[in-house]
């Protein structure tokens, strides 16, 4: 219990540093850098032309499909991680192998389905 927490103390320290460093750097930059105010400087960059409309555009639906596919497959990988640690040396190798292969096999069904449904093709 405390061993686990111990190994994360450096993580906390690093996180703290990671959180503080960028603002500190930016603070230093503020002190060092010059200042000049010109309205056109604060416009959005659009290759020199005057920006039109908002940039908060609608998601392309393609991205959504990928996101879903990713979430699902990534979650499947989630199951592989604990399995990876017990695969070796826990004396249950044969069951572990068969079941995980079955799992991957079933996963393949979904994969082939997605492929054939052209969910994995960018431009339809």
């Amino acid at each position: 219990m405390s061993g686990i927490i111990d190994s994360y103390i450096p993580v906390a320290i690093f996180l703290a540093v990671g959180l503080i460093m960028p603002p500190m750097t930016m603070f230093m930059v503020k002190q060092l850098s010059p200042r000049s105010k010109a309205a056109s400087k604060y416009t959005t960059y659009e290759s020199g032309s005057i920006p039109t409309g908002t940039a908060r555009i609608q998601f392309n639906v393609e991205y959504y499909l990928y996101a879903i596919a990713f979430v699902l497959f990534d979650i499947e990988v989630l199951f592989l991680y604990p399995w990876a640690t017990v695969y070796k040396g826990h004396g249950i190798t044969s069951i572990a192998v068969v079941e995980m292969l079955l799992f991957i096999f079933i996963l393949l069904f979904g994969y082939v389905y997605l492929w054939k449904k052209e969910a994995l093709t960018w431009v339809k």
Partner: protein
Amino acid sequence: MNELMYLAPEIVVVATGLVILLAGVFLSPRSKNILGYLATLGILAALFLTVKSFGLLTMEGLQIGYSVFSEALNIDALSQFFKLVFLVVALIVSIAAIKYNENSDHTEEFYTLMLFATFGMMVVASANDLIVLFVAFELASLATYALAGYEKQNPRSLEGAMKYFVIGSVSAALMLFGLSFVYGATGTTSIPLIAANPWLLIENPIGLVAVVLLIAGFGFKMALVPFHMWAPDTYQGSPSVVSALLAAGSKKMGFVAAFRIFIIALAALQPDWQFIFTILAVATMTFGNVVAVAQTSVKRMLAYSSVAQAGYIAMAFAVMTPVALGGGIMYALAHAFMKAGAFIAAGVVVWMVSQEKTGNLNVPDHLDSFKGLGKRMPLAALSMTVFVFALAGIPPTAGFMAKFVLFSSTIQAGMAWLAVIAILNSALSLFYYARLVGYMYFLPPEGKSVSVPFPYAAALLVAVAGVLVMGIWPEPFVELAMKAAMVLV
């Protein structure tokens, strides 16, 4: 490998689902119709295996159950009985859906989702571990969320699906939260082990919290009254075949899960949940019946009636005698036949309306569409009559037999007041059922007569046969239900 033998029905179902999924994407749209037959065959095979498995459960006259997969699953009379229920529903739905999906591009998705949902329900029925139970519960729920929104172009279907999804997910969260407390109090997720340490739950105040959360969680799926809001919308909006699956199948899943969790695992807290369930049962049946009277959409009416029926089954929790539990379990099967059939019959009418583009297209299942159905589609009307009379508990139908056992056991347990309420409700329900029959037979038809397409007709006949066989020859079903109840007590 012995373990796999006990799970043969599940394996068949899930394998059929996978094969259909892949076959569907490789087949041309025209030839996708065979998928429906394939699914039906798979379900029939699973049904056969399930029925056969009843033989395995008795050895030298003793009732036995098996625990397989490191005690994650339990094969006993209760699980097999509910598998029968789910497979029966799946069979009826699958046959009817052959027609429903006739020109659909997504046939394989429908059948795969349906089979996965059935698989999930079947696993819930035999779950012996909270994890398995929750995972299977969610598997079935997820598949049915998608099925409810199957008609992507139909705003009603989508709206129903959305409500179902939101409320279903919330209920899943409540359930998970509740289960986490059960686990926390006992330190195990195995149902028998939880049951083996009753004092852990009694002494710990979080046991009560868990009960409340779990009742809310399962209550949503069972559509008990304060948690029923999604049911009418979803049942009305979804395609009729899906409504049949939801009302007849998915709801039973809630019950079997509740049986496993409350009666076996949380037996220690019986006084607490029994009281809550008693109140919920009364509220559910009364509310469902009263509101059903006011409906003009038949599917919505059936939905409310389904809510009411859930109240009857929930009486089993309130009474908690072996016979009452058996009655509740038997009612589940009877209700599967009746409600699935009734929704399919409503689906036939919706199909007819959409074919002819007459009548109220916004609410194709409006009562007006049923006018003179006795002349337009005698088979559909007759089956619907059988179903609604069965739902009302008119003999000799499955509904009567199931009510008979359930209500009589209530009296036996000395809860005559509950039986009186249930019986009065049953009488009240006759009012709106009779009105539907009235529309079908006593009003003049508003269109040509139509012949019921073969798959629909076959599905209806299966359901009618089930209703009548259970009504006329209930012995084997009563016996099975009682065996199943023995698992619980």
